[in-house]
C-alpha cells in the first residue's frame, strides 16, 4: 500500500545513491516530531491521568496507592476549590469582555482611511508581542502605590491596586486587557474589512441609522471571526497563571492555575493536582465546545 504512493527519486540525488525512497525521507521528517509529541505531550497526559487516581506524592518515596475517584470527589466537594473556580470565572468574564470591547472598538476606529494606519496598527500590536513575565513586572511598577505612574496620572494618591483584595483581580484583568486587546483588534479588523462596502450603502438607502446598521449588519457579519477571538482568549484567560502570579499574591486573585501550581509544587499533592488538572481540562474543552457550537450556528449561511 505504501509503495503505491512512492515516486521515483532522481537517480543522481544523494538519497537515491544511499538507497532511500521518498517514504524514508518523509519518515525522517515526521518521526522526530511524533516522538517529541509522544514523549513530552501524550505520555505525560496519560501518565498524569493515571496519577489522578492515586495518592502519589512526588516528594516522598512512598509507593502510589490506587484510590479510585477519591481525588475527584474530594476536589469537587472542596469549597476552597470552588472559590478558586469562581475567581477564575470572574477573571475570565471581566478580562475577555474588556478585550472584546476595547479590541473591537479600536478596530472600528481603525477601519477607515486614516493617515499612518499601518504604523498605528503596528504600534497597537506591540503589547501582544511582549512576554507575560515582562508585562507582569512592568505593570507592577506602573501600579506601585508610591511611585507608580498610574496613581500619578489619575491623581489617586496612594491607591493600592495590587494589595487591595477587592481590586487586585481587576488590576490583573486590566493588565490582561492591555496586553491582549490588540489580538481581538487584529481579528476584528480582518472581519470588519471583509464586510462589503455595498452592504453599508444598501443599509443607508434602506434608511437604517448608525446603531441599527451596526447591530443588524456589522456585528452579525463580524460575529464568526469575533467568536474565534473570544474562544482563544477565553481558553487563555482560563489558564492564566504567570500574570496573576507575578503581579500579586492576594487570596482573591488565586485563580485556578495558581491553586494547581501550589497544590502540585508547594504541597506536593501530585495525585490530587493531576485530578484538578483533569477537571480543568474537561472544563476548558466543554466551554470551547459551547463556543464552537455557537460559531457553527453563526457561520451557517
Amino acid at each position, binding site marked *: 500500500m505504501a509503495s503505491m504512493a512512492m515516486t521515483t527519486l532522481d537517480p543522481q540525488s544523494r538519497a537515491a545513491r544511499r538507497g532511500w525512497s521518498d517514504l524514508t525521507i518523509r519518515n525522517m521528517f515526521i518521526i522526530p516530531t511524533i516522538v517529541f509529541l509522544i514523549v513530552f505531550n501524550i505520555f505525560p497526559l496519560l501518565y498524569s491521568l493515571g496519577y489522578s487516581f492515586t495518592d502519589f506524592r512526588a516528594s516522598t518515596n512512598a509507593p502510589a496507592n490506587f484510590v479510585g475517584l477519591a481525588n475527584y470527589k474530594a476536589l469537587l466537594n472542596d469549597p476552597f476549590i470552588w472559590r478558586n473556580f469562581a475567581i477564575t470565572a470572574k477573571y475570565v468574564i471581566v478580562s475577555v469582555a474588556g478585550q472584546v470591547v476595547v479590541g473591537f472598538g479600536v478596530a472600528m476606529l481603525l477601519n477607515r482611511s486614516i493617515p499612518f494606519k499601518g504604523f498605528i496598527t503596528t504600534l497597537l500590536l506591540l503589547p501582544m508581542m511582549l512576554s507575560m513575565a515582562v508585562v507582569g513586572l512592568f505593570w507592577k511598577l506602573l501600579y506601585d502605590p508610591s511611585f507608580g505612574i498610574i496613581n500619578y496620572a489619575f491623581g489617586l494618591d496612594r491607591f493600592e491596586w495590587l494589595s487591595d483584595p477587592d481590586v487586585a483581580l481587576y488590576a490583573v484583568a486590566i493588565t490582561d486587557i492591555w496586553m491582549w486587546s490588540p489580538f481581538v483588534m487584529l481579528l476584528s479588523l480582518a472581519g470588519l474589512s471583509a464586510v462589503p462596502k455595498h452592504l453599508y450603502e444598501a443599509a443607508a438607502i*434602506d434608511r437604517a*441609522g448608525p446603531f441599527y446598521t451596526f447591530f*443588524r449588519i456589522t456585528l452579525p457579519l463580524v460575529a464568526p471571526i469575533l467568536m474565534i477571538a473570544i474562544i482563544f482568549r477565553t481558553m487563555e484567560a482560563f489558564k492564566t497563571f504567570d500574570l496573576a502570579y507575578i503581579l500579586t499574591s492576594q487570596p482573591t486573585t488565586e485563580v485556578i492555575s495558581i491553586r494547581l501550581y501550589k497544590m502540585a509544587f508547594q504541597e506536593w499533592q501530585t495525585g490530587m493536582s493531576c485530578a484538578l488538572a483533569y477537571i480543568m481540562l474537561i472544563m476548558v474543552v466543554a466551554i470551547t465546545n459551547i463556543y464552537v457550537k455557537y460559531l457553527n450556528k453563526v457561520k451557517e449561511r
Partner: protein
Amino acid sequence: MTHIELRGVQKWFGSNQVIKDMNLEIADGEFIVMLGQSGCGKTTTLRAIAGLETIDEGDILIDGKAVQHLKCSDRDIAMVFQSFSLYPHMSVYENIAFPLRATGLSKTDIDKSVREVAGVLRITDLLQRKPSALSGGDMQRVAIGRALVRQPKAMLMDEPIGALDAKLREEMRAEIKRLHVKQGSTTVYVTHDQVEAMSLADRIVIMHEGVLQQVGTPEEVYAHPENLFVAQFVGSPVMNIAEASVSDEGGTVRVRIDPKDAGFEFPRELVSRLNGHASGGLSVGIRPEGVLVSHEAAPGYVPLEAHIIEPLGSHDIVDLQVGEGMIRARTPSGFVPKVGEKVHARIDPAQAHFFDTASGKSLGIRL
C-alpha cells in the same frame, strides 16, 4: 407624485470631471434610462441622486426641494444595486423587511407589506431562504422587493440585471417593465445595454464622458440622433457612418463615400439644404435597414460585393464593400446566397442622416 430635477450638476473625482453641467428633468411616474459606456458618469449621476455620492456644484431637486445636502435616508429613494447587495445573513423575508424594520414599523404592518411585495414578485415560496440559496434572477427579485416594499418616492436601478445571463436578462427586463406599469413609480435606470434601454425607457438619457448627449424617447434617439456618438451608440447593428462628398453631376446629385465608387443618388434638394452647413466636413449615416439591396441593376443603385454575411434567422446582416470601407445592409435572410456575390445597393434618402464630421453634430437634414 415625485418629480426629480438636476440643475447644473458638476462632479469631480480629483482632477477628473465625471459629470459636466448636467441638466435633466424627470417627470412623475416616468421611466428614465441612463445609457452610456462604462465610465461615462451615468452611475455616478445615479448615486448622486441617491445620496451615496456628493456633488460639487449644482442642485438636485426632489419635488422641488433641494436635497444635495441631505443624507440618503432623508431623500426617501430606494435603490437596486448591480451586485444585488442582499444582506447575506438574513433570510429573504428579513431582507425585504429590513427597510421597514429600520424605520420601526409595527410587526403586522411589516408582515403585510412583505407578503404583498413577495406576491407581486412571485417569490412567496422563497421567503425563508437565505440569499446564498437563490438563483441570480431571484436574488434580483428580492433586491427589487426590498426597494419596492417601502413605497419610495423614486426607484433607482444601477444595472440591476447586468450580472445575469442573456436569457434571464430578457425575462427580468419584461418583469421590470411589468412592475413599472403596475406600480408607476418614478424610476431612473442605468445601463450600458441599448436593447435594455430601448425596451424599458419612457425616455432615454444618453451620456458620454460626463456630458449629456441627448434626451428623448427611444423612437426619437433612434430616428433622430443629435450627434455621431448617439447615432453610433443606439441601434444594433451599428449605424453605418462614413465621410462623404456630394456632387451635382448633370442634374443628378450623388453622395460618394469613396472617390472611386459610383456614388449613391440623392434627391436634388440635398444640395440646397446642405449649403453653408458642414463646414467641418460631411458625414453621412445610414442604418443597415436604410440600405436597400437588389439583385437587378436599377437607376440609382450601385453594384457592390458582399464581403461578410451574418445570418440572424429573421434577417441577415451583409457587409458590402465600398472602396476600402464597408457598409452593412439588412437583407431578408438568404437574400445574398454567398460571400463574393455582387448585389446592387442604394441608400434610402429618407433614412439618411447627415452630420458635421468635425463637431459631430447632426445637421438636422431629413429628405
